[in-house]
């Protein structure tokens, strides 16, 4: 075995007879940022909960730090940090108390828990709010506090389930910056997201999930190279005209996707493709040439958009 804190083989989760996670394989290397990218219901949280030892797997193998979650949950959890999808801060306690009691759950001494709490509040820029009740914090602050809390035991691996969903752009950037610093300190990050920009910003490697399965795997760059063209031309026609405009544009670029609200042409040279479209008499209301993103990869692999 190499230095892989998490290895899954044929990992499966059933709820009743519904298959939420359908026999997935992955391994996560020490020190990397690994992402699960997928739409609602893809099985991301179910996978994270199995790794976090709070949901027993139905079948398959799962090894975390070389241990089995069904036998050694406490020992594994002692070395993990967890940020769940839904905020679950202790609303009956203040900001700093949230960190201190969490440290106590990990058997830290009171003095050590307090010391680390102060340090972590500094790290997530919440020192001034130390004595506030949790419910008075903004969404972004709560998320930062949750991340601080997940670090109280100095974990080797941090699990982040949609760390920035629902936050405004500024709050997201603050969070990304903190996560980036963690990575630089050598902490392994495992995160889920349905934002392609988040995946591109943070992940060294990721798997694309859909319907409980892994449909592609690689670095953000290699996924784009493997599954999409370099450029994309986005054309928007008048309402209901997108479908009708498609036939005239056939053969331009490598591939075309017709969506309800726009037409996408995949081409290695976007500008040339756009000129060709104009030359064929296309008169879109708006036209845009951009680089391919993970969104395009996802569309290609599943025929659907990531965020609906």
């Amino acid at each position, binding site marked *: 075995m190499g230095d892989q804190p998490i290895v899954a083989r044929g990992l499966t989760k059933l709820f009743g007879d519904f298959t939420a996670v359908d026999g997935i394989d992955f391994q996560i290397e020490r020190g990397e940022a690994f992402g699960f990218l997928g739409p609602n219901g893809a099985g991301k949280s179910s996978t994270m909960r199995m790794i976090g030892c709070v949901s027993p797997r139905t079948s398959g193998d799962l090894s975390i730090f070389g241990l089995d979650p069904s036998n050694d*949950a406490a020992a594994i959890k*002692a070395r993990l940090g967890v940020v769940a999808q839904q905020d679950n801060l*202790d*609303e009956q*306690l203040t900001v700093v108390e949230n960190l201190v*009691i*969490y440290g106590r*759950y990990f058997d830290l001494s009171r003095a050590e828990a307090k010391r680390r709490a102060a340090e972590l509040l500094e790290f997530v820029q919440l020192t001034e709010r130390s004595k506030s009740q949790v419910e008075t914090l903004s969404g972004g602050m709560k998320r930062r506090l949750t991340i601080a809390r997940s670090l109280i035991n100095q974990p080797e691996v941090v699990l982040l389930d949609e760390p920035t969903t629902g936050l405004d752009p500024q709050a997201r950037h603050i969070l990304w910056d903190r996560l980036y610093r963690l990575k630089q300190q050598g902490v392994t990050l495992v995160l889920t997201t349905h934002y392609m920009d988040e995946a591109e910003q943070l992940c060294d490697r990721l798997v694309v999930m859909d319907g409980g399965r892994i449909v592609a795997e690689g670095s953000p760059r290699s996924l784009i190279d493997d599954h999409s063209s370099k450029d994309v031309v986005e054309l928007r026609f008048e309402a209901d005209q997108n479908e009708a405009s498609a036939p005239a544009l056939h053969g331009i670029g490598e591939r075309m996707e017709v969506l309800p609200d726009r037409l996408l042409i995949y081409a290695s040279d976007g500008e040339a493709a756009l000129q060709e479209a104009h030359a064929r008499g296309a008169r879109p209301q708006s036209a845009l040439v951009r680089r391919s993103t993970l969104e395009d990869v996802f569309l290609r692999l599943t025929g659907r958009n990531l965020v609906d």
Partner: protein
Amino acid sequence: MTIALRVIPPVIRTARRPQRMIERSLMVYRRTWIIIVSGFFEPLFYLLSTRVGLGQLVGDVSVNGKVVDYATFVAPALMASSAMNGAVYDSTMNVFDKLKHSKTYDAVLATPMGIGDVTLGEIGWALLRGLLYATTFLVAMVMLGTVHSPWALMAIPACVLIGFAFASCGLAAVTFIRSWADFGWVPTATMPLFLFSATFYPASSYGKWRPLLQISPLYHGVALVRSATTGTADWSILGHATFLLAMAFFGLWVGSKRLNRLLLS
């Protein structure tokens, strides 16, 4: 030894840190200590009302062959009922929100803490409060002259046992509760127990209904506390204690199993 172990549910046996859950509760209540202090006055007023009010109207009563005045008769029953109510409150109201809304336990379970720690810790907290209330209650009883034997001290462990039985079953019950509206059922369960557990009249006055008393857990609690404060204990207390212990372990089994299913699915 092995049999003794087997009555303890598996997840409870593996609990290592239930005291952390109690520590959390102490942190929460550190700021709301007034609630705990006010717990002292409630029994005091209750007892006063039986002393100056009811006690004047009702004559003496016989307990295990010993004749006592009505206030002495009824005070231990109020003490037992208050242990029941406190335990039920702490294990239902206090737990429901953390379980269903604020997801406190989900966060706790992401650490080395387990279901056994949560279960034992929350019941332990209820017992700790029960211990405090029982002690203040006994002090109030001494002040009002309704205690006639040093055996009265045994009323405190008796109340803790009542608390254990009701807190365990309360915890089991709260896992079935879907919304705050369902809490309307709690008094539906505790009120009849309060009224029909040889609380206000001796068991002999229940006539042909008397055997039914045996199925009321509070009756067993009242009998224990009353035999302590009046100093009239006999071997029957073993039966009463066994009943409450059995109820406590039943609640532990159901409660820990249900919590496991709800929180670790």
